[in-house]
């Protein structure tokens, strides 16, 4: 009786899971389908998931009309740079905040919370003027600094939570055994922080990869355009959207993120769960 109930429950669980996967993956499937449809099929009154007359025309248009490869390269540089720099800056700060209970910790936490409230639109003009003064307008390095500053508060918050989850007794035990501060950080803290670092890096990567507004304001030259800016060029005036090439370009833009996720997903899972249990 119990065995039969388990099997039924298992089947129901799988059905629910399949439904959930279908719900989550449907937009991606629809984008894939749209990317292979010609302009006439895209205005069909009754759309179909499977293209009636599939064509690669949209991919050709997407690559020939817009410099997707250059834009992808720019986005990759910015995202990877943001991920690496954010982690490098946030990691020592997170350790200091987590381990040293000073007034600075409270002030910093307060600053992080307040900075998350500010909408982009409030700071964009002063930010633009600062970048202009520093001659960093229309440059990837200027935009990278903006991304770093924008990602830092949340990454700092996240990392200091992971540091707090590492028992202080481990460091004390290592210290008793004769390990210095640097040795403790390198041999004990860093390996245990690996999942948290991966999560923080992923957050910074995605923030940089998907970001549109700062790039729109800071960048001007076509050769500096990032992928979101290039994708926006498929949306014309008065609601005219070139769905086919946009779907093709969007799919291409999604691939690096998918690859990145596939590589780090094991660490991502353990990293997301690591900070969840106290003691």
């Amino acid at each position, binding site marked *: 009786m119990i065995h039969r109930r388990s099997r039924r429950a298992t089947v129901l669980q799988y059905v629910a899971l399949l439904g959930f996967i279908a719900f989550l993956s449907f937009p991606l499937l629809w984008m894939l389908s749209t990317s292979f449809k010609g*302009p*006439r099929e*895209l*205005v*069909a*009154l009754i759309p179909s998931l499977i293209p009636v007359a599939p064509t690669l025309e949209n991919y050709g*248009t997407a690559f020939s*009309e817009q410099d997707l490869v250059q834009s992808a390269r720019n986005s990759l540089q910015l995202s990877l740079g943001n991920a690496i720099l954010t982690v490098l800056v946030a990691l020592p700060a997170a350790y200091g905040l987590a381990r040293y209970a000073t007034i600075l910790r409270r002030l910093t936490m307060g600053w992080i919370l307040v900075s998350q409230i500010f909408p982009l639109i409030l700071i*964009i*003009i002063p930010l*633009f*003027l600062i970048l*202009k003064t520093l001659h960093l*307008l*229309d440059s990837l390095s200027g935009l990278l600094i903006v991304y770093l500053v924008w990602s830092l508060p949340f990454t700092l918050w996240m990392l200091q939570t992971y540091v707090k989850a590492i028992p202080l007794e481990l460091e004390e035990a290592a210290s008793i055994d004769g390990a210095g501060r640097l040795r403790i950080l390198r041999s004990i803290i860093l390996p245990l922080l690996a999942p948290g670092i991966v999560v923080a890096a992923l957050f910074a990567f995605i923030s940089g990869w998907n970001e549109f507004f700062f790039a*729109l*304001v800071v960048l*001007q*030259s*076509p050769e500096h*355009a990032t992928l979101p*800016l290039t994708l*926006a*060029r498929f*949306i*014309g*005036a*008065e*609601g*005219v*959207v070139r769905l086919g090439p946009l779907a093709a370009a969007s799919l291409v833009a999604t691939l690096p993120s998918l690859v990145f996720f596939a590589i780090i997903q094991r660490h991502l899972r353990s990293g997301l769960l690591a900070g969840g249990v106290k003691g």
Partner: protein
Amino acid sequence: MNKQIRASIATLAVAILTAACGSANPAASPAASVAATPATPVTLQFASFAWQKATVDAHNKIVSDWNAAHPNITVKIVTVDVNSVHDKLLTTFQGGTAADIVHDESADIGGFSGQGFLADLTPLIPAELKSDIPQGIWDTVTFGGKITGVPTILQTYSVFVNKKMLGDANITLPTAASPWTWDKFAEVSKQLTTGDRFGVGWGLKSPAATVMSMSLNFNGLFFYNEGGKNVVKFGPAEQQVLKRIYSLAYTDKSLSPTTLGQSGPEILPGFFAGKYAMIVGGNYVAQQMVEQAPAGFDWAMLPLLKGDTQAQSANPQTLSISTQSKNPKEAMQFIAYYMQANNLASVAIGDWLIPVSTSAGKAVTTITGGKNSWDVNVASAPSLKIAPFQTLDAYAQWKTQIAQPGFQQYLANKIDLATLGTQLIDGWTKVGGK
């Protein structure tokens, strides 16, 4: 005409027209002028929101031909996202990084002109260019007595028809000499409405621009100058177009109610599937007709509807020179080159819009042979004129915050005309209009 043929015509047009422009004959192109070579090399930035492939190609060809013919004056295109032109330009003006040549539209440059961001082009415009464009169009780019933009191409709101459906119903198409009146349009729409088909579909998700422009058919100006102050009035002239659309939807029931909440491009699938026999939209919709209509779909764009007149508001795209530019004379030389008949014609064909100059209009008709309703398109130009609201600083805000939601509510049958009128009039005060 399928997409390949259309693309071929556009490419051929670009190649033929702009290849001649490196050594253009001034006599054949009224806007031509020989550019003086500056002593030191000059680089001009040209911020453009062109997004249609054919228009981008035309721009690239114009710029590359110019650069080849003028090695000391190099033009570099800076692409601006078409849906954030105002914000992008404002940022660059405020930040002191504005391009030399700025591509915008007349309804938007009024504010920039008032803030001193755009140069007075009046003394720089060549006489032959000035005379090639009707004065009514120059009025749309004149602010405070100064011309701050050179108009280029224009849009109209037109009726597109399924010729087969009209032919089956024995309805004769209008001609330029005998256009349809609004009454005739309503009558035809009712006649074409059957059990499974509406007479007309009209994408009125954002109705403000359409209503304000087409109201000029009945001299509905909305804005009047009284004692030096601009006030909003909502009298019988202003109410005409709104009442007629309302009547189509709720009295005659010949306007598809679904389309009232859709944007222009969203109504096309229904049109191609025969859900409605006619649609109303911007003349640029012709490009989507060519690219997306099913094989054998026989369509036509009609001459502009007529109320008291066929007038609609002229809101041309413009080329301006930023006051931050260090080389305004060289910038105007490039603009004059851009405005040569053949160059402007290639841009107009790319965007499926009407060129403002007489010479470019003739060039477009010659190249296209009048096919795909280009003859009707170009013939609409004389009906376009400036509307009072185009020169008002607070108009953009009033249109977005007051008129747009007000018109939407009225056309959704949620408020009546009296309530709408009160909203429009009080709203002008709210946005600080004067």
